[in-house]
């Protein structure tokens, strides 16, 4: 029997919605759309010297995606841009039954029960993918 992936921690994270809003330019922006449900997460990153100085997100989505975005809102400032790729692979590994991420992203452990709901994995990943797209913009030369 599967466990309900809506713990009090998840619901609280979604309600807190840390980092909700948009940054004032200059910043990098990434947007990710879930074609299965129409949800969208837009993540703004201000990147300075390879580190994320500020983050904001606009996440019109389910509880799981909102909680995931909220973790990014609190944990990303001060992290290296390269940490995002590792975060994605760590979260993916956890959703396939592995250990949760450690360190600043340890609160992704709250999503461990989502592993039993394959159709919801993309919900957790939605804001991470948006953040990765924003980070990739930083590598593109500005026109």
């Amino acid at each position, binding site marked *: *029997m*599967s466990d*309900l*992936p*809506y713990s009090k921690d998840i*619901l609280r994270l979604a309600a807190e919605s840390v980092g909700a809003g948009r940054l004032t330019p200059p910043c990098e922006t990434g947007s990710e759309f879930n074609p*299965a*449900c*129409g*949800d969208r997460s837009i993540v703004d990153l201000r990147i300075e010297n390879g580190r994320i100085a500020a983050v904001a997100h606009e996440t*019109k*989505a*389910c*509880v*799981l995606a909102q909680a995931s975005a909220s973790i990014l809102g609190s944990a990303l400032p001060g992290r290296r841009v390269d940490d995002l790729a590792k975060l994605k692979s760590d979260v993916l590994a956890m959703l396939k039954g592995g250990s949760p991420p450690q360190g600043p992203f340890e609160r992704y452990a709250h999503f461990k029960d989502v592993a039993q*709901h394959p*159709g*919801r994995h993309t*919900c957790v990943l939605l804001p991470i993918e948006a953040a990765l797209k924003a980070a990739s913009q930083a590598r593109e030369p500005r026109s």
Partner: protein
Amino acid sequence: MMAQAKPRTAAFDPPRKDFPILERRVHGRPLVYLDSAASAQKPLAVLEAMEAFATGEYANVHRGVHFLSGAATQAYEAARERVAAFLNARSAEEIVFTKGGTEAINLVSYSYLSQRIAAGDEIVLTVMEHHSNIVPWHFLRERQGAVLKWVDVAADGSLDAEAVDASIGPRTKLVAVTHMSNVLGTITPLKAIVAAAHAKGVPVLADGCQGAVHEVVDVQDLDVDFYAVTGHKLYGPTGIGALYAKRAHLMAMRPFNGGGEMIQEVTRDLVTYADPPARFEAGTPPIIEAVGLTAALDYLSSFDREAVKAHEADLLAYAREALREFNWLHVIGDAPGKGAILSFECEGMHAHDVATILDLEGVAVRAGHHCAQPLMERFGVASTTRASFALYNTREDVDTLIRGLAKARKILG
């Protein structure tokens, strides 16, 4: 909480024993399958027919001279006859097998309309179409400059035939309309739409993927030019669908896919094509699936279809009444005479979250945009939760749904 019991409106006993999957448990609870609009479960009659054919009669069809090839060809062509009878086509030659409803509509887009449409010509469609009846026309917009003219639905989800008529102009080359909305359950006034379009010399394609399941379809009476169906929603297998098309249209259409079976003659310098329907069935077709489809249509037709319809309407009304107690839940689509599909949004709760909680109660519903994003935009929502009813569902299934929704509200509300 239980819905207030009203007398059942139809003396129909849901044939649950015919569907072995309904006996299974999900997350430790009895399965309540309310996702038949996405794909219906398969009765034993279908499964057994396919197994018997695969283990006793299977071979490739057409052009074979051995016994099994003859038997398989006979079964395959009998399936065509069965579909023709189910839709009341004039003959089996008006039935083209496809891999589903989507391919049937794409076939019309490529083989019929792309030859007849120029930049600025129009295709009329409604905002409640499934993407399968939108994207093939977008192809013609992108590639040939066709213009898509959208017909809105009313606030209750109903479609006015006069609104469709008003959208048909001198440059309209096709009206593409669903027979029954996969989101709202709206049954469209198809016969009136066809009459209005024909009065202006415009052919009509109907997406019958839902309509053929819940309505008794008579393509001759409707006078519709094209009617697309899919097997897996008709209690049949996946991988097979059919396009009904008037013979004159089929004869004038160019091939879609090239390969075996669809040719008359191939030389180094020349290829000529078989007559329809073979012209549109390149390659080895879905043979076992065709046998399954025959069994499915036999199965569905073995019931009094009006009684089935009344049963499904009873489930819809029962659910609709129960949901009135939830002032945080808003049903989208309340057109008079609608089919047994119930879409709704819950205040403060995302459809996927609601569906996940229902799933843990054993209730299978669909959540999302249901491949109908223009309709979601029309109603100002990103997604809905959808419960869809079939002949095997019961009022007890509805009760479980209602309990699950109350639980979802408690957790997420």
